[in-house]
């Protein structure tokens, strides 16, 4: 091996090692700085709802709930839209329109979070409030729509998160669909598939990548801070109601970290960071596992068979 080659390897190896080191360093910092809170509350921290900085009582449950609930809702709203955009751009869109659409989705991704938040306060929240006040009483009796119509709350947060993750999911899903060999679609057509069936076959072929795209959007929703803080209402409670003001882990960190002078309070906030870190890690590992298990059974032949299998 030539010496220049060895230098190159050492160089890029160092970069890779640095990445690993940063993750480990973050984990170590989070654990050491939250020791005080972990010793005092133990596992209770994950399961209790009382967040009282004056009394020194801290429980993360409302924040964990709010983060997961808002992210899952955002995912449910954003995924069909994002995949629709991706399919339209990559499969159906007239060439003249394609560049413009790609540019627009990328523009959405480039808008800073705080701008989404301001738009949320001044446009989205009043619109949501109008929907809430216009809802028939019979529906308002359901647990999902209970509470006063404030505008700010879980629904506004989920909507704004959905708008924010659509460009990410759709951009990656689009790129993934582009990598599906033309032979896949041609084969489907040759078997007598309609346009819809051919696209379904292509999507099945690309499913691991598409799942990856969706999970990336989920990861972004979990960690999104500023825009959510501005519209979610910041009230730590566990509620099924879409109209209730709630709270997320990232939002409480952004809100309370600067003024937390008390050691236990600070430790509790850092433990919230640790919880968010762990949850993000678990979500990433689960999506990896899902992709691996799907990749193992991936074969082009099966893809077409399964896609056709539904009506066979």
């Amino acid at each position, binding site marked *: *091996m030539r010496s220049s080659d*060895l230098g190159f*390897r*050492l160089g890029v*190896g*160092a970069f*890779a*090692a*640095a990445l*690993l*080191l940063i993750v480990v*360093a973050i984990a*170590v910092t989070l654990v050491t700085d939250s020791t005080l809170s972990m010793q005092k509350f133990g596992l209770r921290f994950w399961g209790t709802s*009382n*967040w*009282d*900085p*004056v*009394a020194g009582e801290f429980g993360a449950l409302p924040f964990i709930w709010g983060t997961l609930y808002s992210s899952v809702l955002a995912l449910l709203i954003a995924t069909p839209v994002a995949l629709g955009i991706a399919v339209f751009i990559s499969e159906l869109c007239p060439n003249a329109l394609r560049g413009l659409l790609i540019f627009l989705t990328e523009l959405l991704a480039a808008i800073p979070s705080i701008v989404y938040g301001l738009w949320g*306060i*001044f446009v989205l*929240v*009043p619109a949501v*409030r109008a929907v809430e006040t216009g809802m028939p009483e019979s529906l308002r009796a359901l647990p999902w729509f209970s509470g*006063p119509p*404030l*505008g*700010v*709350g879980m629904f506004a947060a989920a909507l704004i998160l959905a708008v924010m993750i659509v460009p990410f999911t759709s951009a990656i899903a689009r790129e993934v669909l582009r990598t599906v060999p033309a032979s896949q679609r041609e084969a489907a057509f040759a078997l007598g598939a309609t346009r819809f069936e051919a696209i379904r076959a292509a999507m099945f072929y690309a499913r691991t990548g598409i799942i990856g795209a969706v999970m990336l959007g989920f990861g972004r929703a979990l960690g999104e801070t500023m825009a959510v*803080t*501005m519209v979610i*209402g*910041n*009230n730590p409670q566990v509620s099924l109601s879409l109209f209730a*003001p709630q709270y997320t882990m990232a*939002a409480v960190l*952004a*809100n*309370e*970290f*600067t*003024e*937390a*002078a008390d050691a236990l309070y600070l430790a509790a906030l850092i433990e919230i960071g640790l919880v968010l870190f762990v949850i993000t890690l678990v979500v990433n590992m689960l999506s990896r596992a899902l992709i691996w298990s799907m990749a193992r059974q991936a074969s082009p032949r099966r893809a077409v068979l399964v896609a056709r299998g539904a009506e066979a």
Partner: protein
Amino acid sequence: MNKIVMRYLAVALTAAVAAGCGGGNSEPVTANSSSGSGTAGALQINGAGATFPYPIYSKWFSEYNTLHPNIRVNYQSIGSGGGIQQVVNQTVFFGATDGPMTEDQLKAAGGRILHFPTVLGAVVPVYNISGVTAELKFTGPVLADIFLGKIKKWNDPAIAKLNPGVMLPATDVTVVHRSDGSGTTYIFVDYLSKVSPEFKSQVGVSTSVKWPTGVGGKGNEGVSGLVTQTPGSIGYVELIYALQNRISFGSVQNAAGEFVKGSVDAVTKAAAAAAPNMPADFRVSITNAQGAGAYPISSFTWLLLYEDPKDKAAGKAMVDFMRWALTDGQKYAADLGYAPLPPSVVTLEQAALDRIKVS
């Protein structure tokens, strides 16, 4: 084969090297004396803390710098909590806070820390009720009951009794509070805790509290944004913010029984009323102050200095600066919406500044 061995060797090597570096980096940053004399003869002093007085502090530091070009003060408005922590850890030379330090915090510091009131601020109730244009009157207990969630409708007899002649609708009250930790919240809950035993036991006093009801907005702008948009809402913002943005607000009954509207004058009156009983360390809450014309939701904001600073040159410069800020500097306060200190408090502080050991 050789290739694989080489690859593992490379990875192991880099990992070892990187780990070595990491060990060094993860050491805590040692407290610096923060007066690193940069350019010839210039003295740089670092401070951090409250965001509330940031506009007046940055005005002062820039004015003082034009008078004394060799002294540069760098103030980071990271919040009162952060300011206290950094001054206790001595990563900055001085701190600033909207709520006085607790005994525990003072004990944690490596030396004796002194509080110096610099200017005053106040908090006012803002509300948005459809059809009501009149300026509402509140008492402390009524505000406390509203923020406790006990008064649920705007036409509640407790509010109606204070505002005869105002047609109050039967709409729900929506409470809007700060979601971020803030000196504004501290002043407001400090007042409510003084006038309502129930508020004191259920909520208490801190920069962030557990609110029994309502929604949280980030910053003064978040609260006022939510209030202006939500019919039936009530919130609290800094007096400066309400004045600058021409937001109308209600008056509050003071300890003397008068309904007083928040203003620079009424805030200084509250401070003057508290001055005769000023404790030696200036750690005093002036909410619900006695005295005619005093606005009840007022507070000092403090600068934090060590009595025996390690860096004597910076200590001398800060004492000189403080003497200027307490006298000439006060004239900038009103323009920026802060209430200037009453002369009696300035005299007490001048004496306290003598205690700082600068040589």
